C-alpha cells in the first residue's frame, strides 16, 4: 500500500476531547472559524457549546450554513426543533467573537426541471478562496447537523484549498478540525424522506466515472452499509452498475452484533441478488474513520494493482451509514483522487429528513459522543 496521508492520525473523543481542547485554547493566540450547519438535528450546537465551555468563546467566529431544501421539503415539519436549536445557538454565540450565515440552495431555480445543485453550491459558497481561512489559526467544521451532500464537498474544498496553499511560500495555514457529535441510535431515527430516483457523484469526485471513454473499465463499488438503506443501495447499484462489490460493515462497533444485524437485513440483496463473495466484505471501525479510510484505500489500491493488466479499474464509494464512518470514505477517496486514481464518491439525496423518535424517547435522553479529528495542520508538516 502506498503511503497513508493520515497515518499517524489525530482523533479525540469524550474526556480526551476536553483534555485536548482546554490546554490547546489556553495557549492563547488562537483565532478559530467554527462552521456548523443550521438544522433540526438536536446535535447542532453540541460541538459549539463544548468548545465555548473549554474557554474558546472569545476567539471564535461562527459561520452558520443554512441550506434551503425548497418549499416542499419534508424537513420543514421540524421547524419547532430548528427553532429550539437556533435559540440555543443564539445564546451560545453571544459569547463568541462574531457570526455570519451562508445559505446553500439545494436546488437550481430552473423550474420545473430543477436539479440538485447543493454539493456544487456548497463548494462555491462556503469557502470561496484560501483568503477566507488564512486569517484563522484553526478552522473547525462541525458536521453534526449537516447532510452528506453538503459536508462532503465543504470538507474536501477546505482540504483542497489547504493543499494548494502549501505550494505558496510564507502562507500561514490554519489547522483543519472536524467535529462529529455521534449517536448511532439517533442517526437511525433520522429517516431520508422522498429519496431521489437517481444518485449522483459528489461534486469533485465524479470526473472519470462519467467518462464515456472509460465505460469498458471494470467498476468496483464499496458501499458502507447502514441500517434501513435498502432503497438507496438498490438505486446506487443500478446507477454504478458495478462488476465487483465490497461492502463495508461497521465492526468493531458499539453494538457488537451490529455487523451481523446488517448482514441479516441485507442478506437477500447482498448474497441472493448481487452474489457477493463473503471474502469481499470489509470491516471498518464504527468509531474510527481513519481505520475505515485505511481499509477503503487499501482495497482500491489492491484492485488497481490486480487489474493493472486490464488497464486498472474505476472505484466508487458510497456511504449510507453514520457520519463518523462516512468520513472515512471521504478521506480515502480524497487522497486517491489527489493521486490521480479513478475514484468517485456517490450519494443519493432525499427531498428532506424526518426525525422519528420512538415513544418515550426524547432528545434529552440521547447520549452523544463528541469526536474531534484533525485533517490537516501543523502536525501534518505545515511550514
Amino acid at each position: 500500500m502506498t503511503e497513508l496521508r493520515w497515518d499517524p492520525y489525530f482523533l479525540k473523543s469524550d474526556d480526551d476531547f476536553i483534555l485536548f481542547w482546554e490546554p490547546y485554547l489556553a495557549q492563547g493566540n488562537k483565532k478559530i472559524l467554527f462552521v456548523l450547519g443550521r438544522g433540526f438535528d438536536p446535535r447542532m450546537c453540541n460541538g459549539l457549546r463544548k468548545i465555548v465551555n473549554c474557554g474558546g468563546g472569545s476567539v471564535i467566529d461562527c459561520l452558520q450554513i443554512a441550506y434551503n431544501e425548497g418549499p416542499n421539503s419534508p424537513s420543514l415539519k421540524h421547524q419547532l426543533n430548528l427553532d429550539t436549536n437556533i435559540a440555543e445557538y443564539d445564546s451560545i454565540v453571544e459569547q463568541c467573537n462574531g457570526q455570519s450565515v451562508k445559505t446553500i440552495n439545494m436546488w437550481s431555480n430552473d423550474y420545473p426541471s430543477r436539479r440538485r445543485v447543493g454539493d456544487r453550491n456548497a463548494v462555491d459558497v462556503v469557502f470561496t478562496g484560501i483568503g477566507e481561512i488564512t486569517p484563522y489559526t484553526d478552522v473547525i467544521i462541525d458536521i453534526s447537523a449537516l447532510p452528506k451532500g453538503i459536508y462532503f464537498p465543504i470538507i474536501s474544498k477546505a482540504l483542497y484549498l489547504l493543499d494548494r496553499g502549501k505550494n505558496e511560500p510564507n502562507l500561514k495555514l490554519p489547522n483543519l478540525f472536524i467535529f462529529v457529535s455521534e449517536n448511532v441510535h439517533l442517526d437511525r431515527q433520522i429517516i431520508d424522506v422522498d429519496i431521489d430516483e437517481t444518485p449522483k457523484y459528489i461534486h469533485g469526485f465524479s470526473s472519470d466515472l462519467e467518462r464515456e471513454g472509460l465505460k469498458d473499465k471494470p467498476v468496483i463499488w464499496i458501499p458502507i452499509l447502514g441500517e434501513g438503506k435498502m432503497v438507496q443501495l438498490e438505486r446506487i447499484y443500478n446507477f454504478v452498475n458495478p462488476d465487483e462489490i465490497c461492502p463495508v460493515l461497521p465492526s468493531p462497533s458499539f453494538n457488537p452484533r451490529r455487523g451481523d444485524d446488517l448482514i441479516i437485513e441485507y442478506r437477500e440483496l447482498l448474497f441472493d441478488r448481487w452474489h457477493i463473495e463473503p471474502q469481499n466484505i470489509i470491516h471498518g471501525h464504527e468509531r474510527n474513520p481513519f481505520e475505515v479510510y485505511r481499509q477503503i484505500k487499501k482495497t482500491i489500491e489492491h484492485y488497481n494493482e490486480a487489474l493493472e493488466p486490464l488497464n486498472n479499474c474505476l472505484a466508487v464509494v458510497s456511504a449510507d451509514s453514520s457520519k463518523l464512518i462516512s468520513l472515512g470514505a471521504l478521506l480515502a477517496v480524497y487522497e486517491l483522487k489527489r493521486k490521480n486514481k479513478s475514484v468517485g464518491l456517490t450519494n443519493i439525496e432525499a427531498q428532506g429528513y424526518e426525525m422519528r423518535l420512538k415513544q418515550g424517547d426524547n432528545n434529552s435522553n440521547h447520549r452523544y459522543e463528541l469526536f474531534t479529528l484533525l485533517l490537516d495542520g501543523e502536525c501534518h508538516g505545515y511550514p
Partner: protein
Amino acid sequence: MFNWANDVEKQVCEIVDSYGPIDKDGLVGHDSLFSLSLLRPEYITYQGKPLVNQISIMFDDVHKLTPTQRANFLKTIIHLRPPVSVWLFERLEALSPTETFEGTTIGRDYRETSLEKFWRPNPNSKAFERAIKNVADKRAKLSYEFHERSFSDCLKETFDAEWESKLNGINLKLAERVRNEIKSSITFKSWVKEVEKREQLTSSPLEKAIAWRTLEIMIIRAKRKAQLTLDLDLPVLSLDAKEELRVRESAELFLAKEFKIPYYYGFTKVSDCSSLNFDQFLSFAGELFEEIISMSLTRKGPLLPPDRQNQILKRVAEQKWEEIPRRVPRGRDVQGFLEALCVFAQKETFAPSASYPPGVTGVAITMEEYETLLNHLKEGKMDGHANLAYIITICISNNLLDVIPDYNQGGKKWWLLYLNRWLCIKFNLPLGYGGWRGKSINDLIKWVKPNKK
C-alpha cells in the same frame, strides 16, 4: 482518434469536476458539434469504398440538459445544418412548456415523433401489442416449459368448468333481477326477448351474463331518459345496437366487480395495462411468465387460467402502489392525490347508468388553467396551486399519470391527465382510454393534502 477524443473528454471532465478557478485560456474541448460535419459516408471507407450510404447520429437523454444547455444545443444543431440526420431523444418533462425549434419548419427541418403517438396513432391501434407480443413470444420460444406455445397462447381466455357453473348461476340471478325490474313495460319485454333469443346463439356463460348486465344498464338509462322527458309511457323501441356496444364494456366491468369475476386477463389486457411502456410490460409479463413456468414444472400444463392471471396482475399493481411512498418523492401525498382521483373515477365509472363507458380513467383542466399552474410553479410560490403543480409533476415524472396536452373537445383545449393503466388495475377501473372528466384547479387542489410545515 479514440485516444484524442478520450484526452479531450478527460480534460473537459476534470474542469467540470474541479474546485479551482477556471483558466479560460487553457480551456479545452470545442464549442460546436463539428464532428457532425466530419461524419460523412465518403469519409468512412474500407479499401477505398464507402462502408455506408447514410449516417445517423443519436443524442440520448436530452432532457437531462439544463434549459440553457438544451436551448444552446438545439440552436447549435439548427444553425449547423449538418449533412447527417440527427436524432434527439428526450423524455417529456412534466409541466415544461413546449419548445419549438426557432427559425425552422416542421416536416422540412425537423420531425417530432412522440413514442405514445407512434404506438397509438388511433385508439384502436394494435401496434404496441404486436411489438410486445413479438418480444414475449421470442422469449417464450427459448423456454422448454412453454411446450412450443407462444406466451399469449398460455394466457387462457376461457373459463374452466368450475367457473362456468358459477357464471351460469350468475346468469340466472341476473335474468331474474332484470325480469323483476321491467314489470309490465312492453319496450323492456321486447328487449328481454331479444336478449333471450341471443342467449340461444352463444354457449359462453360469460357472454350471456354480460348481455343481461348490459340490458340492465340499458333499462336504467332508458328509464332515466323517460324521467327527464316526463314521458312515463315508454314508446316501443328496439335496442340501440351502437349504444349497446358501448355499454357492453361497462357491463363486463360491473359484473366483475359485483360477482368477483376475473376481469384482467388475456394478452390484450396485459398489453393495455403496460401503458405503452416496455418496462412496465415486463414487470407484469415477468410475473405471469414465472407462473407459467412453475405450472409447467408441477405438471399442471402451461396454460394460465384467467383467475390466476387476474390475481397476478392485481398483485403486481398492489406492489407498485405500496412502493410509491418509498420510491417517489412525497410518496404519501402522491398516493393521497392518486387515490382521490381514482375514487372519483370509480364513482363516475360505476354510476348505475354507466354514463361514460367504458369508464373514467382521467381528468383534465383547460390549457388556460394549466398555464396558471405552470406560472405558480415557476414563481416558486408556496400556495395550493404550486403544491398541486408539484404533486402532478412528480406523478408525471414517475410515470403515474400520462399527459395529453392541447386536446380539443367542446370548443376548448384541455390538458388531459390519464391514470397509468396499472393504477386502473389497482382501483378496478377499465383499461381503455377515452373516459375523462373536466375539472377545475380548485377541485384538484382539494385532492391534495396541504404541505404542512
